């Protein structure tokens, strides 16, 4: 070929046109990409830094101890709720939902191979969707795990599943659980038809895709613009907005830019109404909620949607914070050197290789030690983490981060996500709801 002419390009065009388009594989690839993207977005949202299966299962047990017997009896009378009393009774928001009939009975039963999936009830609002379901099988379920669980609309994931237990706990042949779906951006109910997707890791790799449709109207959240500020230990926190939906209430806060401390986690947040009754964090709060570096955070609480309190007192205690400027560690992977570790913290950092990092920290750290990771040019690198391996020895935990770098530029900063140093004092603020 000595001369390029239009025919050569024409030939390529024809060759390309002859290429068959694998429509299904492409659709699947896009769905995968959406999942992948959401997972990382989710990590960025810092709500569920590491949703460890073990932790979730433990929480289920821990929380079921708090059941009030009176309430448990009442709830147990409602079809489908009896087995899960333990999971819901501690959350007053869910109690109110049950009492006010704000849930939809589905009763959809689907059998696939050795397994029968029943969708029992669903509660849906603009803060999320909680679905109660069970799986039955003539075989022992304890060997089987749930590998994926979520809700979609026409194959596109709808919100993300925030909590469920991935091992099939319960009796040997019945697994009862609920899954909470939370929004990534906003949840839309323009289309009320959904699919519930559940994959198992049994030999047959059983996959359920169960369509369901909501018929009851979705309640709009009550939104209060608060816009009040409060100071604690010289740091200003702006309480911006309160949005109450049936499933949960959400408070939006921001740290003042002039603050000298970087706020990390709010370990205890609750509110008290004029009768002295108090609402705590929802279970996902166990992680503690952090303020992102751009200064905003949403804290999700048990909801009092169905009550009409006149005022609420917001109480926030045990606020983790570090002085700004000593709230990160910095390493150079190219030269395999640690550049900066705040001296006041009891942590040790080693660069093991051009893409691995080992961090040793006291186990009294209640959440993930580190979160946001950026390179010199401000590129967010949390998507480049291949794995984090945790181990524990005496009072110290060790995390080994392995990255997959492309063109990232050292030095790389890893910001602290949690450390047990607290602001001196607590926040107590009255919010009137008129």
């Amino acid at each position: 070929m000595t001369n390029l002419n239009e025919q050569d390009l024409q030939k390529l065009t024809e060759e390309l046109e002859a290429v068959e388009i694998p429509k299904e594989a492409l659709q699947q690839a896009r769905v995968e990409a959406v999942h992948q993207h959401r997972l990382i977005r989710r990590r960025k949202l810092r709500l569920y830094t590491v949703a460890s299966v073990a932790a979730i299962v433990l929480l289920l047990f821990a929380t079921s101890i708090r059941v009030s017997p009176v309430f448990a009896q009442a709830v147990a009378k409602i079809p489908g709720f009896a087995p899960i009393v333990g999971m819901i009774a501690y959350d007053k928001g869910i109690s109110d939902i049950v009492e006010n009939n704000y849930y939809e009975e589905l009763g959809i039963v689907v059998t696939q191979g050795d397994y029968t999936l029943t969708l029992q009830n669903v509660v849906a609002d603009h803060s999320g969707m909680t679905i109660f379901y069970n799986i039955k099988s003539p075989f022992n379920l304890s060997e089987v795990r749930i590998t994926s669980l979520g809700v979609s609309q026409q194959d596109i994931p709808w919100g993300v599943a925030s909590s469920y237990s991935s091992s099939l706990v319960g009796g040997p042949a019945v697994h009862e659980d609920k899954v909470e779906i939370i929004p990534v951006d906003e949840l839309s109910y323009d289309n009320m038809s959904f699919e519930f997707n559940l994959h198992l890791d049994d030999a047959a790799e059983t996959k359920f895709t169960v369509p369901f449709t909501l018929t009851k109207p979705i309640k709009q959240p009550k939104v209060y613009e608060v816009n009040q500020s409060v100071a604690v230990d010289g740091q200003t926190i702006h309480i911006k907005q309160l949005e109450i939906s049936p499933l949960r209430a959400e408070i939006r806060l921001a740290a003042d830019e002039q603050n000298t401390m970087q706020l990390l986690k709010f370990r205890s947040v609750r509110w008290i109404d004029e009768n002295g009754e108090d609402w705590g964090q929802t279970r996902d709060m166990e992680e503690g909620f952090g303020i992102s570096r751009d200064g905003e955070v949403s804290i999700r609480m048990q909801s009092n949607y169905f009550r009409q309190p006149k005022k609420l007192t917001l109480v926030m205690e045990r606020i983790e914070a570090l002085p700004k400027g000593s709230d990160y560690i910095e390493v150079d992977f190219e030269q395999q050197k640690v550049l900066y570790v705040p001296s006041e913290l009891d942590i040790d950092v080693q660069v093991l290789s051009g893409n691995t990092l080992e961090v040793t920290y006291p186990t009294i750290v209640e959440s993930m030690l580190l979160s946001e990771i950026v390179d010199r040019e401000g590129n967010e690198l949390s998507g480049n983490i291949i794995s984090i391996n945790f181990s524990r020895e005496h009072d110290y935990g060790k995390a080994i981060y392995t990255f997959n770098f492309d063109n990232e530029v050292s030095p790389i900063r890893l910001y602290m996500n949690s450390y047990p140093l607290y602001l001196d004092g607590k926040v107590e603020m009255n919010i009137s709801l008129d």
Partner: protein
Amino acid sequence: MNLDLEKQAIAGNEQALLELLKLHEDMLYRTAYAYLKNKHDAVEAVQELTYRALKKIHTVKEPAFLATWLVRIMINICLDMKKKQEKLIYNHDVEIASTDQQPFEIADIIAGLPIEQQELIYLKYFQDMKNADIAQLKQIPEGTVKSRLHTSLKRLRVLIGKEEL
């Protein structure tokens, strides 16, 4: 041009972006195929494209540029993947002496051009766009499109010449 879908996608509507990717899937997949020459890698490129698009869609300023933007990312992804492919098959085929033209041979040669020029060629010849449309997309005068295309083709000829040696 009705750009509602593009506008919504840029505003962060995931569904709209997915719709657009589906709309252009033939063109995007074929572009990937030209570079990678097999179904598996081309599908993977589409997945990576979707992911990157979701991640960076907010950086697109002009709805009209969205399609070009997607082609540009796709070419970038393919070049990266090709690099990896080449690393893997390093020592193998050294035989290029065959006089028969391999399928997609020209695509390999195009891949040697600066990315701006690759993009131009794909838009012009494989998406069958008119110079005027490209000019509008890229917001440059039609004359410039013409001269850039000319330069690209000239370079392409030089590259083909080298291949012959």
